[in-house]
């Protein structure tokens, strides 16, 4: 594999109309373990897949990527077997390829606009990205970016999810002294406590974070800012602050019976199993109650992760209940597909009305109203309306509510001075991610509400660029002529990185 590295890229076109398949654990095996489901490409498969790329001059895929990875350029390097070079190319724009390759909604982004869609499958950008990310991790390739000479400026990053990590990485590269504060005992945000092991192996995440430490980023765990220290005091100690505290506050449905034993928010369910490792109870100390039949409410990634996690705890039955139709399910396609393969029983157009319990306060059933699709609502999605008299009861002993999350309350309760929207998210200037306080920037789910890893990373990057400007010039705003020229902007963002 490595012997090819450095040889001149040659152009062999692979005219296959389908993606090079990726091997997976068979559904009948994988529902008995927490190991990763898709097994990744071999180097040969990666080269073969890259050879499908048309190397379009106008690169529609780059515009489709929220962080603007030069996809054709890295595919060209993969074609020639230069995996290290390809990896460097990705890392210029995305420092977590092993993670994004696994969790990005590629089908709505780069792959959606790929020219190959006209003939069949788009290029498997996500799979190649993952291959390269993993290659770095398994081959000990040193892609720690160049770090500029120290500037003497100090930045605090609050929250260690993808937004915070990206911002920390970019600022460290520019020579700023970065400290990341995290409320929990492990860094990574949702990547650690939410997304399950079988979809994103924790070892992958841990190694990416090690890379940041090598760049000089300091991590302070168990440090809920707003509680352990006021934001005001952090602002005094640091020249600038980035808030990436995420949307971690679980919403419930406000239906009767929701506080019965056996009803969990998706966050509690996933935190118990992922962060605390309850699937290994009693070897790990955090328990999860044995489950016989379970209903998961919702149809986003969180719901799919909860349902598939539940399936691995070996219940008799896992239902997924969603009030809209298949078309509106917000989860990544691959997750929906995997969930179905694993035998999750989908009940679409069902809206929970109440949860029933026994005399001990334990869940015994969930009652749902059947729905039909009506007129489109403000979001353009057809609004589900109740179907007269059609109730259905699911006999279950556990219910997981995965219908969305609001902004994390801990920090914001402490600093009313930051301007927010009526949904409680932080108001920022979208060009700079600067909040109503000039030295405080914010990005990720705390600004957008629950969104995606890559958008959080994009926000972290935009903020880092603006923070750098703010620290060096006193203003977060780009100079006017730079602002109107997106190429110059991209160049400015790439500045100082050792690529």
């Amino acid at each position, binding site marked *: 594999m490595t012997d090819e590295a450095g040889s001149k890229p040659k152009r062999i076109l692979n005219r296959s109309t389908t993606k090079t398949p990726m091997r997976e654990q068979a559904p009948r095996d994988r529902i008995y373990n927490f190991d990763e489901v898709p097994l990744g490409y071999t180097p040969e498969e990666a080269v073969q897949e890259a050879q499908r790329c048309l190397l379009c001059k106008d690169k529609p895929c780059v515009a489709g990527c929220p962080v603007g990875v030069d996809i054709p350029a890295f595919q060209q390097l993969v074609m020639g077997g230069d995996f290290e070079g390809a990896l460097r190319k990705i890392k210029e724009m995305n420092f977590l390829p092993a993670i994004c390759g696994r969790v990005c909604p590629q089908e709505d982004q780069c792959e959606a606009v790929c020219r190959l869609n006209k003939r069949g499958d788009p290029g498997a950008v996500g799979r190649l990205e993952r291959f390269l990310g993993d290659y770095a991790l398994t081959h000990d390739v040193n892609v720690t970016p160049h770090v500029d000479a120290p500037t003497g400026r100090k930045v605090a990053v609050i929250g260690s999810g993808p937004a915070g990590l990206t911002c920390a990485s970019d600022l460290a590269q520019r020579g700023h002294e970065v400290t990341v504060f995290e409320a929990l005992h492990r860094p990574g945000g949702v990547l650690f406590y939410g997304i399950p092991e079988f979809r994103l192996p924790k070892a992958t995440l841990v190694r990416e974070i090690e890379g940041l430490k090598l760049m000089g980023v300091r991590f302070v*765990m168990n440090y809920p800012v707003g509680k*352990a220290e006021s934001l005001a005091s952090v602002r005094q100690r640091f020249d600038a602050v980035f808030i990436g505290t995420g949307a971690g506050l679980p919403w419930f449905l406000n239906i009767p019976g929701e*506080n019965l034993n056996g009803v969990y928010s998706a966050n509690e369910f996933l*935190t118990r199993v992922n962060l605390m490792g309850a699937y290994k109870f009693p070897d790990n100390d*955090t*328990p999860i109650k044995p489950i016989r039949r379970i209903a998961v409410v919702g149809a986003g990634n969180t719901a799919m992760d909860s349902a598939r996690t539940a399936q691995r705890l070996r219940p008799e039955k896992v239902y997924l209940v969603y009030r809209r139709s298949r078309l509106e399910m917000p989860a990544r396609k691959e997750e929906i597909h995997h969930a179905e393969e694993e035998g999750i029983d989908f009940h679409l157009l069902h809206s929970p009305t109440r949860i029933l319990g026994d005399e001990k306060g334990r869940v015994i059933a969930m009652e749902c109203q059947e729905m039909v699709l009506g007129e489109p609502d403000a979001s353009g999605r057809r609004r589900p309306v109740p179907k007269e008299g059609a109730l259905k009861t699911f006999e279950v002993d556990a219910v997981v509510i995965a219908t969305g999350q609001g902004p994390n309350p801990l920090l914001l309760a402490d600093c009313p001075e930051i301007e927010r929207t009526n949904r409680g998210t932080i108001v920022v200037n979208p060009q700079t991610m600067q909040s109503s306080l000039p030295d405080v920037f914010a990005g990720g789910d705390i600004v957008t509400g629950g969104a995606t890893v890559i958008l959080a990373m994009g926000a972290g990057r935009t903020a880092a660029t603006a923070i750098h400007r703010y620290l060096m010039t006193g203003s977060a705003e780009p100079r006017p002529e730079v602002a109107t020229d997106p190429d110059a902007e991209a160049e400015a963002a790439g500045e100082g990185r050792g690529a």
Partner: protein
Amino acid sequence: MGNRIVTARELAPQTMLFEIEAPHVAQRGQAGQFIILRVVDHGERIPLTIAGRDPARGTITIVAQEVGHTTHLLNALRSGDEILDLAGPLGKATDIPTGKTVCCVGGGIGNAVVWPQAAALKAAGNKVHAIIGARTRELLILEQEIAAHCDSIVVTTDDGSYGRKGLVTDALRELLSSGEKIDEVITIGPVIMMKFVCLVTKEFGVPTQASLNPIMVDGTGMCGACRVTVGGKTRFACVEGPEFDGHEVDFDELMTRLAFYRDEETRARQRDHDCRLTRQAERTATPGKP
């Protein structure tokens, strides 16, 4: 990361007091707030109330009663050991009135929280009464420490082995009927005790704060495991509490929710017990080892 234990002292059987280095918690913590800690890498996160703090020394005091596996591990630690993870101060501080007459009613391990509350109340210029209870004499903790901040203190034990025989509610009823105007009651202890304390104070129309102790996972408002019903509304005790208007709390629901993992606790405890036996057996098998 730090969190070194500087003092470990047994207060009662299976009840330890620890003074731990945690400078920022010592700086910012207030009566009624809690910390979350983890003792071992595969361990649970458990909440413990801050019983005292010394900003100058950079230490906090916690009191832990061995009730589950994690408190079992915790209570085996000694001074010089480090607590793996410690986050805080979490939750809201107790609402401390000024210039009022307040009665603190504590039971069992809850008395560890009465201690800082009484201290804070006294410091704010209140007249402070305390009624503290325990099942039996040897389980009573911190009587002197609490008494130091109170204008009066009554101790009750269920079996009459010390203080007055009976329940804290008996003593409370007496105080409330004594003619002295009590402006507020603050209560902390077993849920069943708080429930009855609140029934009594409701009868007398005395506002009451109850400090709730639901199951918690993160303690940062992220999971909802700690949800309690107060005035018909769901609240997250870790961020909106732990103290709520006792007359509005659904104590029965709280008791049911607290009992949910009892089987798992028993399993974990059984394992602790087995481990202890194995350790003992090993010790006897290899003489010379401590």
